[in-house]
């Protein structure tokens, strides 16, 4: 054991404010906003896939299959270089606009996660019995109203554990913004590790933090799942 003898806990202690107030804040904000955006767009994509307009369903299906067959790292690179050009096109500017690290990664993760969330929501919508939308339309509700008040709330509720599990995966996946040298939690840990030459301490600590958060979160999801199961 060469390194464990001079394991330097003080390096971690001194870096704590930076790791959590900068790094973890970035990670958690990105996770929360990407999960929310992914859920909204994912639901829209799921509705497109299930709509009676065939071509709408085909476009949505193509998008989902396309995104799901690419590595997230490649998608991160794609959007990092593409978003400035899209921004230029949207705003009519004369040169590609500069997009901040946070905005760029948020757009990437929303676009990426929407594909995965849409599959979950599609399964959720399909799990609702046909009598529900039929009864809604018999009551005179429009398609939008029947979705808004009858189908989607139940689909969301049924799929809540799966959606939360996907959010835990998303939480872990946000660490991949490392490839753009963005200081998320892992990026911050890696910066300190390289500055102080303390790779062992910082990476072990980062692994421990990710592990504890994911474990606690998935334990919570399991509890929620059993509670929902009793209610139904």
């Amino acid at each position, binding site marked *: *054991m*060469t*390194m*464990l003898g001079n394991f330097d806990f003080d390096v971690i202690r001194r870096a704590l404010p930076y790791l959590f107030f900068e790094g973890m804040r970035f990670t958690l904000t990105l996770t929360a906003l990407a999960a929310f955006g992914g859920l909204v767009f994912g639901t829209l994509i799921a509705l497109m896939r299930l709509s009676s307009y065939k071509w709408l369903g085909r476009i949505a299906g193509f998008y989902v299959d*396309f995104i799901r*067959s*690419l*590595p*997230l*790292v*490649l998608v991160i*690179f*794609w959007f990092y*270089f*593409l978003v400035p*050009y899209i921004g*230029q*096109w949207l705003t009519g500017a004369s*040169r*590609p606009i500069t997009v901040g690290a946070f905005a760029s990664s948020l757009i990437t993760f929303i676009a990426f996660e929407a594909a995965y969330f849409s599959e979950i929501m599609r399964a959720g919508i399909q799990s609702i019995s046909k009598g529900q939308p039929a009864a809604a339309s018999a009551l005179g509700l429009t398609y939008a109203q029947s979705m808004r008040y009858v189908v989607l709330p139940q689909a969301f509720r049924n799929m809540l554990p799966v959606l939360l599990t996907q959010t835990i995966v998303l939480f*872990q*996946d946000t*660490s*991949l913004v*490392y*490839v753009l040298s963005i200081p998320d939690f*892992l990026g911050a840990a*890696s910066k300190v590790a390289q500055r102080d030459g303390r*790779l*062992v301490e910082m*990476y*072990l600590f*980062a*692994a421990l933090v*990710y*592990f504890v958060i*994911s*474990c606690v979160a*998935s334990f919570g999801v399991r509890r929620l799942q059993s509670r929902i199961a009793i209610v139904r």
Partner: protein
Amino acid sequence: MNYNWNWHIFLEPNPMGTGTYLDLLLSGLVVTVKVSVLAWIIALVTGSVIGVLRTLPSRTASWIGFCWVEFFRNMPLLVQLFLWFFVLPELLPRTAGLWLKQLPNAPFWTAAIGVGLFMSARVAVQLQAGITSLPRGQKQASTALGLTTVQTYRYVLLPMAFRIILPPLTSEFLNTIKNSAVAITIGLIELTGQARSMQEFSFQVFEAFTAATVLYLLLNFVVVTAMRFLERYVAIPGYITGK
């Protein structure tokens, strides 16, 4: 859009002197395939062992299986690769650590083992689900026939379970291919890595990433088609997918 498209770039020689830019990307594809296949073998072998452990009546066995899965599932793959690549050599005795660091092609082996172990947790969970989905009578009948536990798994449970979980295993193999791109962070120049270096050498960002995207889609297509044939070949008569 004031971007200078140049699709002929693929036929121009790359600065590494290894042929054209297309050759550069194809060599990346070969690395991606090699790492993914090796990682998949590791994932299948260890994942099967752990999956079986999780279904055994022994408390210790299922506890080991539980810990293995939770350990590899609750950390980002990127962090796991960093642990194997940067941390492990420091924790080992000096000579072993040095040997590990000086290993030729270290990123390749680290990526294969790291991605393999990461995926093994997922394979284990799938296999466990496959085994527990079998009717209880299968196991009871094997016991009644006088088969030992090993024989029961070898001749009765596993041949059934593996065929049942073939479709989810296909998507786990596709995930292995996708996850191999994370190895770019420990310096493995696979397909995404080569697209990135092509972008840095030639400044043709979108051509490079388009080509990488097409190659990933092709790889996906090949795997899905091959697995569909395999599924049909090993389908169990009497099950929905069987004849």
